[in-house]
Each structure stands twice: as C-alpha cells, then as structure tokens.
C-alpha cells in the first residue's frame, strides 16, 4: 500500500465542495424556515379573513334584528310619538287623490 500525498489542489477542491454543500444546506434550511414562517402567516391571515367574513355576517344579522319592524314601530310610537297617517295625508305619486276642500 502506497501512501499518496494529497495535493493542495485536491484539498481546495474538497473544501470548495464542502463549502458548496454547506451553502446549499444552509439555503435549503433557510428556505424551509421561511416557507414555514410564510405558512404561519398565510394560515393566520386565512383564519382572519374567515373570522372577518363571519363577523360581517354576524353584524348583518344583528342589523336585521335592530331593524325588525316590531322594534322600529315600538321606537316610532313610544319614543318618537309617531302615529299612523290620517286619510288624505298619504300622497300617491302619479295618482290624483282628492284632498279635503280645495279652492274653487
């Protein structure tokens, strides 16, 4: 068996290879870490979008409750003192309805 002396060129080549491998591995790890981080953000944002959509629906439903005619009528009559219109007080667009005693 003959011991062959490793040439500096071969050492440099080996070192370069190791360095390249290190760079690739580092890049891969960074890429993976970044992808996972982005995954968290996307998941978080998707979750937020879903929650906001649900919130909108909830608010629309609440609005429907607040605008329920029973509630509106109660407020109109009890709080604002409004009453039903008397005959002749309702005007119909494009229709001639006689008014009480108009001038000659």
């Amino acid at each position, binding site marked *: 068996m003959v011991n062959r002396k490793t040439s500096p060129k071969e050492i440099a080549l080996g070192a370069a290879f190791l360095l390249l491998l290190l760079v690739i591995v580092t890049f891969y790890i960074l890429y993976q870490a970044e992808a*996972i981080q982005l*995954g*968290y953000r996307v998941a978080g944002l998707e979750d937020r979008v879903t929650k906001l959509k649900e919130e909108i629906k909830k608010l629309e*439903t609440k609005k429907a*409750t607040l605008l329920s*005619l*029973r509630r509106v009528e109660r407020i109109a009559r009890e709080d604002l003192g409004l009453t039903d219109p008397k005959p002749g007080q*309702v005007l119909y667009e494009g229709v001639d309805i006689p008014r009480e005693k108009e001038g000659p």
Partner: protein
Amino acid sequence: MRGLFSNGMRTRALALAMVLAVWFVAAFGRLVHLQILKHGRLKAEVLEQSQDDMEVLPKRGTIYDRNGKILARSLPASSVFFSPLKSESASAQMEQVVRLKDRLGLSEKDLSRIRTRLQKKDTFIWIKRKIDPEAAGRVMGLNIKGIFLQDENKRAYPLGTLAAHVLGGVGIDDNGLAGVELQYDRLLEGEKGRRLILRDARRRSYQFETLKEAVPGKDLYLTIDETVQYIAETELEKAIAACGADWGTVIISDPKTGEVLAIANRPVYDPNDYPPAVPGEGVNRAIQHTFEPGSTFKIVTAAAARELGKVGLGETYDCREGSISVGGSPVRDHKLQGILSFPEVFIESSNVGAIKIAQEIGERNLFQMIKAFRFGERTGIDLPGEEYGICRPLSSWRKSSLRIAIGYEISVTAVQLLGAMNVFAARGRLIRPSISLGTGVGGLSGPVNQEPLKVLSEGTASELAEIFKRVVEEGTGLPAKLEGFEIAGKTGTAQKLDEELGRYSSARHLASFVGFVPADDPVISMIIVLDEPKGLMQYGGQVAAPVFRDISARVLRYLRAAPKPKAETLVTAKMAKASRP
C-alpha cells in the same frame, strides 16, 4: 509490570467492547422494536400529532324574504366537549366539569347526563352545544384538562317569532325539522368537506390542505314579504286580544301568481328555541288544521250554480220561514230573510237560500264542482305537513250531506279556502300557492309554478266576483269595507261540533272572512280565521271582516296601491286662461 498493564488494558478494552456491544444490541433491538414492530402505531401517532384530518361543516344557506331581508342565517358557534384523561377516576373527572357549571349555565339534568356518560367511560362527552364563541373563549381560559372546543354553526332567526311557522326550525345538528327549513333541507344544508391541517411540535397549524371542498348550502328566497308578514301578525294579535279567540290564522297572497306574501298564526313560537315548549304552538294552522268553514264555502255553491247554468241570476228563493230541513235536521238562517234573489242569497249569507240552490244544482254537480276546486286534496304549497282536508266521496254522502252547500260536512284548510277564492280573483284559474321564489340572487331561479287549472269560465268568475263585491258593499261583509277600495269577499261563521254532546254548539264558533282587493284588479287576497271568539260578537262579519279591512288598509298603502278617488268629492282646479302677450 508491562504484562500486568497489558492484561489490565485488555480486560478494560474487552469490558468496554462488551458494553458497547450490549449498547449496540440494545440500540439495535430498540430500533427494530420502534421501526419494525411498532412502526404502524408510532407512525399513526406521529401523524396524529402533526396533522389533523378535520371535517369541514358546510354553512347552511341563508333564507331571505322576497326583498332580500334576512329571515334565517347560520352563524359560527362553539360547542364545548370533554375528553377525560383515562388515568383519572370518574369523580375526579366530574369535578373538572362542575367547575364549568356556572359559566355555562349547566342544569342538574345536564350534570346528571354527563355523570352517567363518565361512569360509562365515554371518551367524548358534549358539555354544552352552540354557545357564543366569546363565551367559549372564556371557558378555555380556565385551562381545564380535557375540555376542548368544536367549531359549529348555529341557526339564527333575527326577526324572532316573525314568520315562525313558515321558517319552521332546525335541530341541534342544524337539520331542518319544520317549515321551509325541512321542505328545502337538502338544498339549504350543503355538503360536508374534509381538510388536512399540518401542525408543528407546538400544535400550531402552518399548512392547510383541502381534501374535499365543503359545498355551502344554497340561499333561499321566499315569496314572503317581511312588511306584509309583520302587518298580518300585528293585526292578528290585536284581533285575538280583542275577541279572545283561542287561535287565529291569516294568509295573504298575490292571487294572480299564487305567491304567498304572509302566513301568520297565533299562538306562535320563537324558532331560535326550536322545538316549541308547547306542542300546539308549532302547528301551522294555515295548512295543518282542518275545519268546517261555514258560509265562506258558499262561494263554491255559487260557482257550481252559475258555471253549470243550473240557476239564473234572476231566480228568487223564499227564505221567509227562516229554516229548512236537510236530512231530517233543520238548517236555519242567522236572521229572518224575505224572498231573496240569487245574488242576495250570498250577499245576506242565507243558509236556507243556499240549500235551495244546492237542491237545484243536485248532489252530483255540486260534488263535481267541489272536486274541481280540489277540496280534499293538498294544494301543493311547498311547506311540509299540509293537510288534505276531508271531502267524502259522493258514494258515501248521507241525506244531510247537502249541508256541504253551506260549509258543513266538509273539512278544509285555510289555504284551500283562500285558493278557492283566488279562482274568482284570477278569472277562473286555480293556481297552486307557493312559498319559495328559488335560490338565485333575487330569487330568479325559482321553481316553475305548474300550469293553472281552468275551474270556471272567465264570465262566471267575473260575475260572481261582482256578487262578492256586494257582500262587502251591502251584505254581511260590510265591516270589511275600506274607503277608496272595492273588496270582494265572503264571511263565514261555522258552529263547532260539540263532541261531548254530539251536536253543533250554539256558543262555540269559527269565524272567517276570505276575499280579495281591489275587486277589479286584485293586488292581494286574504283569509282570516279566528277560532272561538268570545263575547257578544262571534260572527265572521263582526270579528274577521274588520281584520281584513285593517290589514288591507296597511298592506295596500305599503304596496303603493292607490285608493280610487271619490267621484263626488273630486274637485278640479280650473286655471284662468292667461292672455297671451
């Protein structure tokens, strides 16, 4: 010395080698154990920890009224469940649950149910279903071992009791149980989906993978108009409070299309708390309750008489005796009448006159007309549980069955009776009533209403509509009269059968009024039924007709149907002719 050292070294090297060999064998054995023998189970555990295969519940479709107002919608809710640790005793597990008692408002019944399930060593126990997500968050803040949340949806009816019997209700799993929720359950519910969630070591999700997309339920647009519905309900409430009726129902429809604008019932329930606490509250009396209609059914007798040409308009009937025998039992008028013409029999709602007309028509012809109006059959309204009513076949008619001409010996639903009146409004056509406009935006892709059936000639329908107009102008329906509008209608007061005594009661009535307005070009048709009004006023003309008037006044104003100007009060201003320059 060197030998000793060599021996010692060799021994130690041997010992080390043996230790290493044992360690290697142990490690190798462990690896075989983990990687080969327990591979399946461990892989499953890893997958369980790193990913979740979740069922994605579809959103149930929203129900809107005809103008896009929300009537029912599913909102997110959280359900609390308990997955107890196996190492703990049932009593220790129960202690954990009891900590939630006040926060979740758990009743003794709830606790008893949970205790039983724990004793059975169940691994999944619902603690409380469908609570507010914020309240659920506070529960999780307590950090109780084994308590988890499940995302669900809860059906919300923002208008409370409004249109409750039309909407129906859903069960705890959001499945339709009544009303349109049941009728259109498959359309509203959608399809469940599946989602794979990848998690890191801290159980944080970082990636979603949809295995099967959840298909949300379709939205549904109804023919119901929130405002018309509200008017019907408030006026019905007032009427029941005034006359003390046991129950009442109102249906309002567009007689030209059969679209139902409102179905109001009292008593009522809140669909947010379905099923109703009192079983009777859930009955949609507009379609699920049958009754002997009384005089409102005379519209069919009139139709048979005129359509078959058996009776002329000018024929008269002697009703002065005030009573007539039918099958051995007397039929009486509500007041003494004179000699009445054909129209007057209906304007004055004479039972004697109607029986005499029926005798002229003949049983077979009368029966054929009743069947032409489809009594004894479902109208086909798209609501579940519609009753057929009872219309005996001609072969089983008795001698007293001619009383059918005045609305006895037959059972009908309110929606059937309204459908019959709509025939006169729609100039002889029988149109199927409908409650759904469809699923598209604005309800444009709705079910196509089947071809209307021609029941009467246009001439007969118009002629009888004129007579029904006079019912309100000068007859029993006078209290329905509304300034500026011509109403065609018919009153009804049916004595109720006293089952204990086996005869009709003179104290218990079912009052009704059915009609349409404006009579010449109908915008709405309506039926009002009040069961057992109390006090002095119990007739349909006295208690139901005013409800028709009050509802019509408000609904017509809302629908911008202008009243007819009164000719005698119409004053026209004349402009003085200006001289041209």
